[in-house]
């Protein structure tokens, strides 16, 4: 997974880059908030970003606000990493749309654990999005069987949109993944037997 690091302090960027590489993440470094915003706008995959707060052009909190406002469905995990350590800043940062907030200088073990939380959240969101897409596909099939169906009271054929009358099973098979196996229910079995018997007797009568 690629991680975006946005920090105008080259020392912070160097330490972060090295640490993330040790943990097998790819790293892209930008030095200001505008570049971070451009990168995030073009991201097509789930993205984890570590953003400094105080940066030229756009600050990290504003980058978070723009992502949440203009890309509300984007699968992005945003971490603010800053030396602004007041409670008010933590609250403001999280309310701006950051998923996590860390104070500089970071503890490497804590950062690793938090980055892995981010990766887990992104992975879960991606799986959830896939399931939603599958469900939407299934729902589209189900919708084809919705609505008022014109059915013949005598032969039970259904009239399709093309005005042709179809057997119930053909109609349903054409509009869903359902398949039919043919059998006979007990009631119809008795009726059929009676009809066959009656037909047999009638034939015997004619033969005589």
């Amino acid at each position, binding site marked *: 997974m690629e991680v975006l690091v946005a920090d*105008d*302090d*080259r*020392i*912070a960027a*160097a*330490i972060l880059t*090295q*640490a993330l590489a*040790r943990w097998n993440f790819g790293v892209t470094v930008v030095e200001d908030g505008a570049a971070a915003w451009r990168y995030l706008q073009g991201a097509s995959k789930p993205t984890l970003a570590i953003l400094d707060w*105080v940066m030229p052009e756009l600050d990290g909190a504003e980058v978070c606000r723009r992502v949440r406002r203009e890309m509300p469905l984007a699968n992005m995990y945003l971490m603010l990493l800053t*030396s602004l350590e007041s409670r008010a800043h933590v609250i403001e940062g999280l309310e701006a749309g950051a998923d996590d907030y860390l104070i*500089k*200088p970071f503890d*490497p073990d804590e950062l690793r654990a938090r980055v892995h939380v981010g990766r887990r959240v992104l992975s879960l969101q991606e799986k959830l999005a896939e399931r939603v897409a599958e469900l939407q596909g299934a729902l589209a099939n189900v919708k084809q069987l919705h609505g008022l169906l014109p059915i013949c009271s005598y032969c039970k054929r259904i009239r399709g949109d093309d005005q042709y009358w179809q057997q119930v099973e053909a109609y349903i098979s054409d509009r869903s993944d359902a398949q039919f196996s043919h059998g006979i229910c007990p009631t119809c079995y008795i009726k059929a037997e009676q009809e066959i018997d009656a037909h047999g007797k009638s034939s015997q009568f004619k033969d005589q």
Partner: protein
Amino acid sequence: MTIDDPRPPFDLEAFDRQTGGDRELGLEVARMFLEDCPVHMEAIRAAVQGGDAAGLRATAHALRGAAAFVTAVFVVEAAAHLEALAREGRLNEAAAGVERLDAAVAQVTPALRQLEP
């Protein structure tokens, strides 16, 4: 001005931990700090002389962040003090703050130079 504090100006153990025990990275970071620090100090002095509170706040903040990564605790504290003075508009006290910062930088610089093999 000297800083009368029993704590060391630079914590090698914490620095090693910060750089993941990577000696090469540690050296690179120390070199970057030694290069960048005079630039930040120059900008801080210019901001104080020019009465530029926003500029002082930004440069003191940048130096504080960099110093935190090299575990230069006195530089961090002196830069944070200047940042607070700028935030509160108390620039008349900033000259003393710059002196304190100068002393802190003078203390940590030799320790960082000693990292060179």
